[in-house]
């Protein structure tokens, strides 16, 4: 397989990207298509806690919510995965045993990645050995911005190897890459180096996920698919708090990549507070009235 020359830049017209996003945001999603979208979005959430203060107790609560987001409505889907730090993978794994909710773990010296590669590979292996189904790694943004594209490529490939059977999501930290052309280049690099998913952000840098960035990444996935027939997943993370935003993202996916990507195997939301807003909207659609947020557990 031939790799593109990463010193070359794929031109991206930011104005055009913003116009496309604005146009897709004008889609009017109502009635049953809205309910379907809400349930779909719920099933795609990586329910996340990534705080220094996370404890086993906090993670157990998070897992309970992931398995049964809102028991009052029984036929709701579960979320796709819970996402935690490596030390808490074991706890989550135990709590989620017997369900198809995955355990995802951030690794590679998340969120900065500014540690020796050996450390980053070690924490990856540790997370996998604790039972992580999915690894969310960060790329070396300093090296990327310094033009060391082969280094970044090789690091991703090394982490992919360390993952074994676990799925690799590569976090580009688009808020630090600044330009859409850098986002495109980092996406191409990550996909060619072995990413199963490409992901926007750690959630620790502002701005986190945005729709223009997501569209550029989806188009990179589409171009990669045209060239290789391989389907890569997409995960916007951080900053997606409302059901309305989530539906707008689903429209981007639907009209850029089509039906095959509209499931949790190829699209995820990295979010913590999104779950409750989606639940509130689902309850509103089912009962015709909004409930106070007090009716939804904050886990």
């Amino acid at each position, binding site marked *: 397989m031939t790799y593109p020359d990463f010193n070359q830049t*794929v*031109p*991206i*017209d930011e*104005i*055009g*990207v913003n*116009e*496309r996003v604005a146009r897709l945001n*004008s*889609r*009017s*999603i*109502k*009635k*049953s*298509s*809205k309910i*379907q*979208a809400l*349930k*779909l979005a719920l*099933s795609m959430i990586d329910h996340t806690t990534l705080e220094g203060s996370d404890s086993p107790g906090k993670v157990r609560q998070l897992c309970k919510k992931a398995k049964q987001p809102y028991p009052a409505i029984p*036929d*709701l*889907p*579960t979320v796709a995965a819970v996402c935690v730090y490596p030390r808490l993978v074991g706890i989550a794994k135990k709590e989620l045993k017997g369900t*198809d909710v995955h355990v995802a773990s951030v690794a590679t010296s998340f969120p900065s990645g500014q540690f020796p590669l050996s450390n980053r590979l070690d924490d990856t292996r540790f997370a996998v050995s604790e039972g992580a189904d999915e690894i969310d790694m960060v790329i070396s943004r300093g090296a990327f911005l310094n033009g060391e594209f082969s280094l970044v490529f090789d690091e991703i490939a090394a982490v992919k190897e360390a993952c074994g059977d676990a799925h690799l999501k590569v976090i580009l930290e688009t808020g630090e890459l600044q330009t859409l052309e850098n986002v495109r280049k980092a996406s191409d690099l990550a996909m060619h180096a072995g990413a*199963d998913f490409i992901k926007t952000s750690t959630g620790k840098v502002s701005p986190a996920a945005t729709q223009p960035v997501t569209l550029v990444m989806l*188009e990179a996935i*589409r*171009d990669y*698919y*045209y060239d290789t*027939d*391989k*389907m*890569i*997943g997409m995960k916007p993370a951080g900053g997606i708090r409302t059901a309305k935003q989530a539906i707008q993202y*689903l429209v981007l996916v*639907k*009209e850029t*990549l*089509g*039906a*095959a990507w*509209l*499931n*949790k*195997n*190829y699209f995820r939301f990295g979010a913590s507070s999104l779950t409750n807003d989606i639940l509130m909207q689902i309850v509103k659609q089912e009962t015709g009235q909004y409930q106070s947020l007090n009716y939804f557990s904050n886990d």
Partner: protein
Amino acid sequence: MSNTEAKEVPYKPTSPNSKLDFASVWEYDPAPQDSDFAEVKEQYNLFIDGKFVKPSKGRYFKSTNPATEEVITEFAEATQKDVDKAVKAARKAFEGEWSRISAKERGKYIYRIARMIQERAREFAVLESMDGGKPIRESRDVDIPLVAAYFFYYAGWADKLEYAFPGKKPEPLGVCGQIIPWNFPMLMLAWKIAPALATGNTVVLKPAETTSLTALKFAEVIKDCGLPNGVVNIVTGAGQTGAEIVNHKDVDKIAFTGSTKVGKLIQSSLAGTDKKYTLELGGKGAMMIFEDAPINQAVEGIINAIYFNQGHVCCAGSRLLVQEGIADKVIQKLKDRLATLIVGDPLDKNTDVGAINSKEQFETVNKYLELGVEEGADIYQAKCEIPENGYFIKPTLFTNVSQSNRVVQEEIFGPVLTVQTFRTADEGIEKANNTPYGLANGVWTDKGSKIFKVGSKMRSGVIWANTYNKFDPTSPFGGYKESGVGREGGMHGLAAYIKN
């Protein structure tokens, strides 16, 4: 999607060899725009001298909704007598009250018109879509906001004309006969009426016979805003009514937007008269996509260039010229993009491509589709469902065409794009210019210098770079060659309504 279904999908990504599949697991429900509030009368009369009056011969013609083929209303047919009445009213107003009003007051009237259109924006948008078949998304987000913007813009000029023409005392021409097409009924009305009023002229306007509804709603605005009687007169009818305006001896200027064929007829009947005229005619816009272009955005630009308003756009980018090295990629992307265009009910908020404006135009476009195939082109149409009733045509691509094909040479005025390739900039420019038209072209490249180099060699009134079909009141618009005479919009648009 239920949880059980999600479980059945194998977790490991598989690699299907099919191309992108947009036959979705998740479809959008219909999202109809409420239209009950927009009143449509059973019959509309002529608007002359500030009053709605019956046509002299009492004849009316029906207007249909092209999306349903149902008759929605009927319009009066203005005869020579009616046109004469309208011109007399316009003359009286021009010599009377309108000329005594200060420029500042004149501006205030135009501002008032702009605000009243904004207030009734949704109503205008709904009626525009019902009568003409264009998607509500466009009439709501493009047409009507631009209509208000043109009135606001020219309102500002009314008392500043000396600054637009330094050293000159700008004087109005008098009575302006204005004939507008069916593709942007309200917007073309604004392009015509706003600069004419700002410069102190009076107007007799004829909307197109298939799309007169919003012009008559506009007459209500004129009435409500207190504009002196006779300043704006609206007469409805077909080609004969237009001819009566053109040939009326007391009209000082003709402003026409429409086909090149009719434009030539008008020009020949105006020869030897002292009437001024501006003609905005057909086009066959070319879009050059270079290898170094931002391709994904270029594809989106192409879609907006040709499928905007069902391709009923005089400056539509109907010829794609793509550099050979990226041709396959661009065509593949266009085909996949066509699959996501939603064709159907113009009043659905999610519709991207609405109905062809009239039966006549529907037949014309279909004739060209057959012609293209007969001449050996490869046809590709969006795999979409279209409603049983109404005049709908699937967005279409013609590949394997050459410069000599009629679908490449002639203006189709429908959702039909031809795709040709070029190797070098010079070859592309030659193809772009090898047409009797010269209204608009587009160029897509990441290189600023190339935009100017190529753009300066393209023979057309408008060149868009890395975008298409962008309009702004401050920007002049008009054609080279058979695409027209004169400019509308911006300061240039004022010049067409004052004495030399």
